[in-house]
């Protein structure tokens, strides 16, 4: 099974300075799969994503993505393998319009892409952004900013999308909307790794679930099974 995985992580360790935060994470994601990565605050979910993107000062182990070893690559090179990341803080760049923020998703993707076409396309998928293309990105509401961050990550058509708590601090209506979007992405064959605190919502979206606690994987199962197993949820995800 692991040979066909799009992403395979083995024994991943990571450190912030002297503080050892990941203690050997191993997990894998198949192509076209939606995997929810859940666990308490501070369990190491975000750190796992950051290690994959090359944003940790020190990380060891093996992370294979699309047949390449990621940890030896520099951060920006990982993007070119088809890995897109939507950080928890969204990081909409201030001073730039929505359109320019979207263009940022394309600046490194290669000159053969027609920016206009790509932006038109993505604006169809995100009608809320379409009306606001020339507004400054940071003046959008929290949910709209999240949509923009996702659109920016999607615009270069990545193989896999890493999402860090997309529902955090967002109005329920928009969370619903986002759920619809993720289902559609799954139907289109996109691979998603979703870090969430909103466990139930995430589990309803996902095929499979991985629970992390104190920097280690403590449980893996199908999302449906975990959704049914309140005990395990209670033990590892209680906030």
């Amino acid at each position, binding site marked *: 099974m692991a040979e066909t995985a799009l992403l395979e992580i083995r024994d991943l360790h990571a450190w912030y300075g002297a503080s050892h935060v990941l203690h050997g994470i191993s997990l894998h994601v198949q192509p076209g799969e939606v995997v929810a990565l859940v666990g308490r605050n501070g369990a190491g979910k975000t750190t796992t994503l950051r290690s994959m993107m090359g944003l940790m000062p020190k990380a060891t182990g093996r992370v294979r993505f699309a047949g390449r070893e990621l940890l030896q690559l520099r951060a*920006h090179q990982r*993007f070119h393998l088809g890995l897109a990341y939507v950080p928890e803080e969204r990081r909409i760049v201030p*001073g*730039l319009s929505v359109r*320019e923020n979207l263009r*940022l998703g394309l*600046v*490194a993707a290669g000159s053969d892409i027609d920016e206009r076409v790509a932006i038109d396309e993505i604006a169809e998928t995100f009608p809320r952004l379409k009306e606001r293309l020339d507004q400054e990105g940071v003046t959008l509401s929290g949910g709209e900013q999240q949509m923009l961050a996702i659109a920016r990550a999607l615009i270069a058509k990545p193989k896999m999308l890493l999402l860090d708590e997309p529902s955090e601090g967002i109005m329920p209506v928009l969370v619903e909307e986002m759920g619809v979007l993720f289902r559609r992405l799954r139907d289109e064959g996109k691979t998603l790794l979703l870090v969430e605190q909103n466990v139930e919502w995430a589990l309803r979206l996902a095929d499979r679930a991985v629970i992390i606690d104190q920097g280690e994987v403590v449980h893996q199962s199908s999302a449906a099974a975990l959704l049914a197993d309140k005990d395990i949820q209670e033990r590892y995800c209680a906030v």
Partner: protein
Amino acid sequence: MDLSLIIMQLLSGIALGAVLVITALGLTIVFGMLGVVNFAHGALFMIGAYAGLYLASLTGSFWWGLLLAPILIGGFGMLIEFVLIRRLYGRSIDDPLLLTFGLSYILVEGVRIVFGSDGIPFPTPPQLIGVLDLGIGFFPRYRLFVIALVAVVLLVLWLTLEKTRIGLIVRAGARDPTIMQVLGVDIGRVWVAIFGLGVGLAALGGVLAGPMRSVNPEMGSLVLAEAFVVTVIGGLGSIVGAVVAGLMVGISISLVALFAPEMATIVMFALMAVVLLIRPQGLFGVRGRTA
């Protein structure tokens, strides 16, 4: 004191400001993007003048010198970033400043060794020798050319920043280098390029100043202090600020020269003190980052 004299005075202030703008611009762009205050900026300005002179004598034309010196010295700047400054990212914000301070000693002394400590004549290009009759007075052609060239450089720079992909990367990279990495941009290469651009602008300022001033190893030290004042007034990292403050300083020096000439140097420092008392972050600076 008649009006035409005041207009002539304004014009000479603008010409003076134009050189200040181009020099301060390099300093401010590098700071805005990399968070590095380049203390060797004045020394690189001076080296730019020498390089322009050398290349002009090599090719027989001032214009080649004007074109090639900023490129060559800009490339040298990229080398400096790559070999020295890069090691200091992540350390105290003071360290690049201190390093480039030491570097300026090396550069100035290096020029003394190669070209001697005397000045070298830098002739005005033959096409621009002499004065133009503006009706109200005569003004050197070369200084008019400097004003025009700086305007063109500013326009090109503005268009590049606002309208091109590279400009977008630069603007976004200054605000959030991490997200640019996530979006596949090799931010290290952008930093090298920006440092090169900043140094190239210093060199351009040097070549432009060459035919107006005497070219000597110490010509950069005064320029450095002036460029600091301009960037502080304009707001560190602000391009618009550098332009406005550069012209403001040039014109105030010029007008003070009319009424109290011996105060002409002091006026810019006084202007800076006043601006800082009112707006500690400078006219166009963003509060929080530095002030």
